[in-house]
């Protein structure tokens, strides 16, 4: 059932929030052992929230827009009094003394928190294989990864443990798992959604965003979480989210650019599999059939994104993760001196991928190398911003595949970090530029697994991504607007 219909049923009294929750928890009980979408199922909290909603309904009090709707939270979101681990041993058992702003907004909207979902440790990864607490399995094929880093949230929605989930996207960590799991995932414009309480990985790149089984639900969730937060200095001051308003505007006359460098043809990066490209082309044709003006366009700096990202993100991460030192919270491995204690704690507490990125980032920022790597990467970012800006003068949105392949089997890409990083080649540019992007399922690959198509828009064009996404979804579903 869609989140909207659940909300409508609860509001009308047709169903109780408690019974909605029971239904979802039953599915969790049935498949969670197999899928491991959650680090923690927060049943007590959920029941209390559902009961509170039912009490409001009974009293005829006003309800939030998501009242009674079960929702899963990625375990890098601070939830007061509820363990928040980032799927890392270094934060195992840590209970934040505060709620992330997004968590407060969702609670105020009446959402029912089913649990904290699994992720690649500290959001570093594209498969959720880097979790310290075991991987999450793709509900559509449990021999395959769900994508990452928000694999748990994507799997929770794909398995209908909850119709809605929140993930975070730093280099594609919402969009790529959405594509792998056959659901909708969206990364907002940087600054559209508060980062207060988002346990930081890459501060200039991170954004919370919505997962849902359909575009309309994702839009509704976006409208609840987005908007200025005075506790986040990087949060956009003048931003009124109105994604739902965009849903039925269609694409008549819209100028759609197909990014040559990510299209598989001449001038494109390698590694985009043929079936993914085929589905993407079909999606593009569907937009044309719906009245859009479609054209190929070159965005040369798009391919530089991967290199720049794998310097900028680890650099920021190396600094953001310094605080995990065993002094104030989390794991501590004792030693004779504080310095040794820091080292022993971090060595025991961080997994290999996290260590690798901390090392990379520390190196990129270190004396003698700053200009060559980090300094250079920031200039590449400027180039990308200029490039995209000039493209968006002539195009309203851009379309690319979301990921180069469908969901791959466990272990296939763990040996060599670069093969894992390449997963993000289509999504990374918009993290560096801060532009919004959505992944919408569009058909399946040769292996029967879902393919996701990405729609990108300029900054503050969040509504536009849902607008185009809705058309793609209708086309994918055979022309029905479900």
């Amino acid at each position, binding site marked *: 059932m869609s989140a909207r219909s659940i909300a409508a049923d609860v509001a009308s009294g047709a169903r109780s929030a408690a019974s909605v929750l029971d239904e979802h928890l039953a599915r969790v009980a049935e498949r969670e052992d197999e899928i491991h979408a959650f680090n923690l199922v927060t049943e007590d909290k959920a029941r209390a929230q559902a009961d509170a909603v039912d009490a409001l309904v009974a009293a005829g009090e006003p309800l939030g827009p998501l009242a009674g709707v079960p929702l899963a939270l990625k375990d*890098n979101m601070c939830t007061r009094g509820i363990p928040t681990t980032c799927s890392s041993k270094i934060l195992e058992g840590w209970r934040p*003394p505060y709620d992330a702003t997004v968590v407060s907004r969702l609670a105020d909207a009446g959402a029912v928190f089913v649990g904290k979902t699994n992720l690649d440790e500290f959001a570093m990864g594209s498969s959720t294989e880097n979790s310290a607490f075991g991987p999450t399995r793709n509900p559509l094929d449990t021999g395959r990864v769900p994508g990452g880093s928000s694999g748990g949230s994507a799997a929770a929605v794909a398995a209908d443990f909850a119709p809605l989930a929140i993930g975070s996207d730093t280099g594609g960590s919402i969009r790529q798992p959405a594509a792998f799991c056959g659901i909708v995932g969206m990364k907002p414009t940087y600054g559209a959604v508060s980062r*207060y309480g988002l346990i930081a990985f890459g501060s200039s790149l991170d954004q919370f965003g919505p997962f849902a089984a359909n575009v309309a639900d994702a839009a509704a969730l976006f409208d609840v979480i987005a908007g200025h937060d005075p*506790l986040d200095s990087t949060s956009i001051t003048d931003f009124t989210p109105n994604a739902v308003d965009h849903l039925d505007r269609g694409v008549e006359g819209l100028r759609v650019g197909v990014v040559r460098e990510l299209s598989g043809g001449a001038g494109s990066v390698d590694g985009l599999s043929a079936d993914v490209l085929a589905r993407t082309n079909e999606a593009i044709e569907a937009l044309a059939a719906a009245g859009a003006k479609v054209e190929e366009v070159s965005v040369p700096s798009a391919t530089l994104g991967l290199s720049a990202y794998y310097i900028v993100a680890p650099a920021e991460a190396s*600094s953001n993760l310094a605080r995990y030192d065993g*002094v104030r919270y989390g794991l501590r491995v004792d030693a004779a001196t*504080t310095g040794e204690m820091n080292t022993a704690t971090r060595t025991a507490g961080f997994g290999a991928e996290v260590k690798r990125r901390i090392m990379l980032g520390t190196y990129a*920022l270190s004396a003698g190398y*700053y200009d060559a790597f980090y300094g250079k990467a920031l200039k590449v970012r400027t180039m990308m911003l200029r490039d995209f800006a000039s493209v968006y003068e002539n195009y309203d949105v851009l379309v690319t595949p979301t990921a180069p392949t469908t969901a791959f089997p466990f272990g296939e890409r763990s040996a060599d970090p670069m093969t894992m990083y390449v997963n993000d080649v289509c999504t990374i540019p918009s993290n560096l530029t801060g532009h919004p992007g959505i992944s919408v399922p569009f058909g399946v690959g040769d292996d029967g697994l879902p393919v996701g198509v990405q729609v990108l828009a300029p900054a503050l064009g969040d509504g536009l991504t849902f607008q185009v996404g809705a058309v793609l979804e209708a086309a994918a579903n055979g022309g029905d607007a479900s």
Partner: protein
Amino acid sequence: MTSCEPTVHEPTLPDEWELVVGLEVHVELATQTKLFCGCANEFSTDPNTNVCPVCLGLPGALPVMNAKAVHYAMKLGRALGCEVHDSVMARKNYFYPDMAKDYQTTQYDKPTSIDGELVLGDGAVVGIERAHIEEDAGKTTHVGGGGRINDAMFSLVDYNRAGVPLVEVVSRPDIRTIEHAKAYVNELRDILLAIEVSDAKMEEGSMRVDANVSVRPVGSDELRTRCELKNINSVRSMGRAIEYEARRHIVLYANGEAPRQETRHWDEEGGRSTPGRSKEDADDYRYFQEPDLVPLAPSAEVVAAIDATMPVLPAARRARLGELSGASPEVLATVVERGQDGLALEAIEAGADADKVLTRLQNDVAVNDWSKLTSSSLAALITMETSGELTATQAKQVLADLIESGGDPAAIAGERGFEVMEGNELEDIVDQLLADNPDEWARFTSGDDGDRKKMQGFFTGQIMKATKGQADGRAIAQLLGRKAN
């Protein structure tokens, strides 16, 4: 340490060496709240009670800049004659338990204020390289062993102070004497108090001084290896530290060695500096722009408004008094430092002798509370003294009364029985005495120096007898001198 350790308390450096000192002063801003969060910016003896996710650096917390701190920082920059321009916060990355995030949010290559100067009481100018905004760290206490860090069994950390707003003022290495170093710190403190951005108390830690010390041969303009001295807790201690360190360098050079560039810890009790602990990698701070904050871009209007509301600063206040009197720089500095220059100006405007006003203030109004002394009563008193109505001793007495309980100087003089001696009355007495003692007067007017002195004493004694001690010694001397010519 070598047997060539320098002894301290020699008053000057060897002639051929010149002192080169730059001072880095950290100033705690007197805002209500911390730099990045709404926790109280106030001293508390109850540890970890003024903390929140932001200043504790909890996962997910984010900083938001305090507008007042920025305002105070710009005000300080302008008071130091700096250019205030667009600035950017940066992260300084290193591990230390008093830093909750294991990086300090500070300013690096684009600080708030640059290129100013501080003018000292004697007119010497010390360049200000920059003044930037940064957050303070928490406090660590070392427990066990000797209470010093090397003997500790464990350490305790309190984050109440973490996140308190600081401005770091960095001078150019223009300071050449210890007196100037002290004057610099005192002047900076006076400015901070005048513009009301900090209470600037070294004893309480709201102003902290680190000294960068090097030496060079007189006549050279090179900058040799410098050492940074930390743990200086008073102006006096700073003087000792600078002197010790300079001598240590000189001894090293004399032995054909050279000081290592390092941070050293000043040990006030032992009267020496010791090397900071080994910091092999501590200097690679990997600065980069703080991604959780956006740049500061003050408009020209904002800076103009700060200039327009800037109070008159100590240097200008000294200058204003200096225009009106011949008092020495020390006197001007003291009067201004105490905040008595307003009083002095009004008294001078009311007609009192400027030099006398300032001297009396410096010598006799060195008190905490002089609120009962008004400028009109001060002016009246000074005039009574300079006209000879009161002796110096009597004037001091009346002044003390005015400070204690206010009132009118003439009334007080009357109550105390200080006859306000009319000028004519004194002169009449003197004329009478001269007439009665012609031989002595002749010796005074035409005798040699020895005679003159003796006769002056004779007549002064006689006049004192005749006036029951109420005549003013100087007035007498002046009168005698006048009559002799």
